[in-house]
């Protein structure tokens, strides 16, 4: 792709961007949210048409004017949000739109057999007649990959494929990717996780503000260099953390069980402290927090806040005890997408400005602005629909929403998932500021560097139990993984 230009009203989305993918390589596309990665991919996939620029595939100039064109050229895109039909079988999904059969009748048996052959060829142990809804996210991803292969794709684009699967599944995904590259398929790989680049990618192209910044060979560069290229400045203090002597015990949880994912978990949180919760996906970390926040009906165990036994049956109870939870899945559990930033910022604190049928509009604006400023959220206006903001800014609004309740204990579940590097760093520095001012934070995260660099203490959970607790002076990736995998 050479000298691609794409303009939207008011935005120069792609300004002279070039990108080259060799057969058999994994080439990462790196950049903050809003850098233009998705736009570039959509140009390649035929969803957008560029104003200027040319696309060459195997030396020949091609014109991609639609999704069908892209498929014909051997381009397959696996979107971040999987687009399989839940109530159809694996085979039906793979052959969707080009079903085998004569006339209007579908030859289901032949389709299932062929799909099974494709799955077996990749050593993916899924039955072709399973319904998509019964598969895990990782398995669904594998189906997407097989579907892409079945088009004889030479170019495979993967948009943040690891954002919602476990480490074990990531390993299998990488294995499958290597098999494909060995056959000469080129893979465009988009991810925010720097650690993955070293593991799977050969080269990396960095974009910033719709412009091409540079292309590097992964082995010959460092993480810091890449980050500097992405944000356009050196991030000297990526993690901000000033450790202080923690105060008295604020929250004490004993023998928490939800009868399913959490079994007899005990932990405590001191004033002015950040505790991290590490563990594999499904270890019961989020579920334990849901108990404390009153989202799980009838959990067992005792919660003590400031030494007093707390009875928490709903989020409203939890808020009364000064506990707030910023949920893990922003899209599913947090955002009111079509509503404004203001609506999203104030939904927890309506009591502060709505009395009966009178709304104090000025106060509503002030509260919203306070947290926009505090979090340095970038939004054109307070009326902007939150769905139009970048992931990082959405997350800032989410954190602001819960800070507005003035909590003593802030639970952050994957606070930087799908958040670009610049905003991540800002979120860390805000967390640091908050604990300095006396707040206490529980952070669940699957990113070990973040856990290690931000936490006073790290609880590691495995299979619903607390497998151990590590002080920040002794915590290492190896120590965490050892506890997590037991």
């Amino acid at each position, binding site marked *: 792709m050479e000298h691609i230009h794409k303009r939207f009203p008011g935005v120069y989305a792609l300004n002279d961007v070039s990108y080259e993918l060799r057969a058999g390589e994994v080439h990462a596309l790196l950049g903050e949210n809003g850098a233009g990665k998705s736009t570039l991919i959509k140009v390649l996939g035929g969803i957008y048409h560029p104003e200027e620029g040319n696309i060459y595939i195997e030396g020949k100039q091609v014109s991609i004017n639609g999704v069908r064109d892209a498929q014909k050229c051997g381009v397959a895109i696996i979107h971040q949000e999987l687009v399989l039909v839940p109530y159809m079988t694996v085979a039906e999904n793979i052959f969707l739109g080009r079903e085998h059969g004569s006339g209007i009748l579908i030859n289901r048996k032949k389709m299932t057999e062929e799909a099974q052959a494709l799955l077996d060829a990749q050593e993916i142990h899924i039955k072709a007649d399973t319904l998509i809804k019964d598969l895990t996210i990782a398995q669904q991803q594998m189906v997407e990959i097989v579907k892409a292969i079945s088009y004889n794709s030479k170019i495979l684009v993967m948009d943040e494929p690891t954002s919602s699967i476990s480490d074990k599944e990531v390993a299998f995904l990488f294995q499958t990717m290597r098999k494909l590259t060995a056959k000469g398929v080129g893979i465009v790989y988009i991810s925010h996780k720097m650690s993955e680049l070293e593991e799977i990618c050969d080269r990396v192209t960095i974009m910033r503000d719709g412009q091409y910044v540079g292309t590097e060979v992964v082995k010959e560069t460092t993480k810091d260099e890449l980050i500097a290229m992405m944000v356009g400045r050196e991030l000297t203090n990526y993690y901000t953390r000033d450790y202080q002597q923690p105060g008295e015990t604020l929250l004490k949880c004993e023998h928490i069980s939800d009868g399913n994912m959490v079994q007899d978990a005990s932990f405590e949180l001191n004033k002015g402290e950040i505790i991290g919760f590490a563990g594999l996906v499904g270890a019961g970390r989020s579920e334990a927090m849901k108990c404390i926040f009153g989202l799980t009906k009838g959990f067992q165990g005792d919660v003590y806040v400031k030494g007093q036994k707390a009875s928490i049956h709903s989020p409203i109870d939890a808020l009364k005890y000064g506990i707030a939870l910023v949920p893990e899945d922003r899209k599913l559990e947090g955002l009111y997408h*079509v509503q404004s930033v203001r609506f999203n910022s104030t*939904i927890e604190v*309506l009591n502060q400005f709505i009395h009966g049928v009178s709304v104090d509009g000025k106060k509503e604006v002030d509260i919203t602005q306070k947290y926009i400023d505090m979090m340095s959220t970038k939004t054109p206006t307070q*009326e902007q629909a939150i769905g139009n903001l970048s992931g990082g800014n959405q997350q800032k609004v989410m954190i602001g929403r819960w800070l507005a309740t003035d909590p003593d204990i802030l639970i952050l579940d994957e606070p930087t998932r799908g958040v670009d590097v610049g905003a991540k760093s800002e979120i860390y520095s805000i967390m640091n500021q908050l604990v300095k001012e006396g707040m206490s934070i529980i952070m669940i995260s699957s990113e070990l560097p973040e856990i290690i660099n931000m936490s006073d203490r790290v609880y590691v959970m495995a299979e619903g139990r607390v497998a151990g607790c590590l002080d920040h002076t002794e915590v290492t990736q190896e120590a965490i993984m050892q506890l997590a995998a037991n």
Partner: protein
Amino acid sequence: MAQETTKKASSNKVMAFLKENMGIIGALLVLCVFLAVFPATSGSFLTSKNIFNVLRQISTNMFLACGMTMVIILGGIDLSVGSIIALSGVLAAGCVSRYNLPIAIALIAGVLIGLVIGVFNGFVISQTTIPPFIVTLATMNIARGLAKVYTGGSPVRVVTKEWQFIGAGYVGFVPVPVILMIIVLIITALIMNKTKMGRHIYAVGGNAQAAVFSGIKVSRVKFFVHAFSGVMAGLAGIVLASRMYSGQPTAGEGAEMDAIAAVVVGGTSMAGGSGKIGGTIIGALIIGILNNGLNLLNVNSFWQDVVKGIVILLAVFIDYVKNTKSKA
């Protein structure tokens, strides 16, 4: 200073509303101007008698549409309202003609039976995951059936001046249903825009899962909205029965569809989470004035349905074009 900013903010809101609904406001104006200028209707359309007549005809649909706006913003649908009109009407009329109860009690009974059905809808919908479409489809049949059982299929007549007051009476020169309509609109607008419940309705409709995490009592919100919709339908039932001198078991057939049409023409998304009562008012006006205009033009009623369908499609299409443009 503070007052000024609030004033400015509220005038901005009005501008934003006008801008957002440009399409349908334009359609409404075109319709009115056409009827006012077109020779065949110019004499009869712009008379105060006809205007109040139109508003009175609209009132029934407007009551339903108020409840329906909330239900649809909540992400649901209420199909039972048309049948509630019949049940409420026959019960109220029956209270007077069969049990000789005072008219006030009869009217309250009519509204209450609407509340009962609404509460039942709300209870099932908030306590189970059965889709609102199915639940209200069932209560639609139940309510219609009960109305027929109660009356044996024939109208229950009440022919007294007092009975007619609420549906055909006047206060000064303004028809009573129009006054009721304005009161109901104000109450609905207040709930939607000025109360915590209103915000919660938008929140649950926008993302029910997030609402749970926000500590919003989702089932209470669903319960309230369906009960409100039931009350609105009960009110529509007594007004209609009063105007027609009788409670009719076939009253309000298809009325739920007119209400849904008013809401979607008014720009409320069937996906839930967004919409404004102001849009619904315009939607109901368009449908009402269209009916009136077609009557004035002596278009036969079969063709009226065809034209109405086309206009609904057109109004939603304008909205669609506008939205896709602003997104690209």
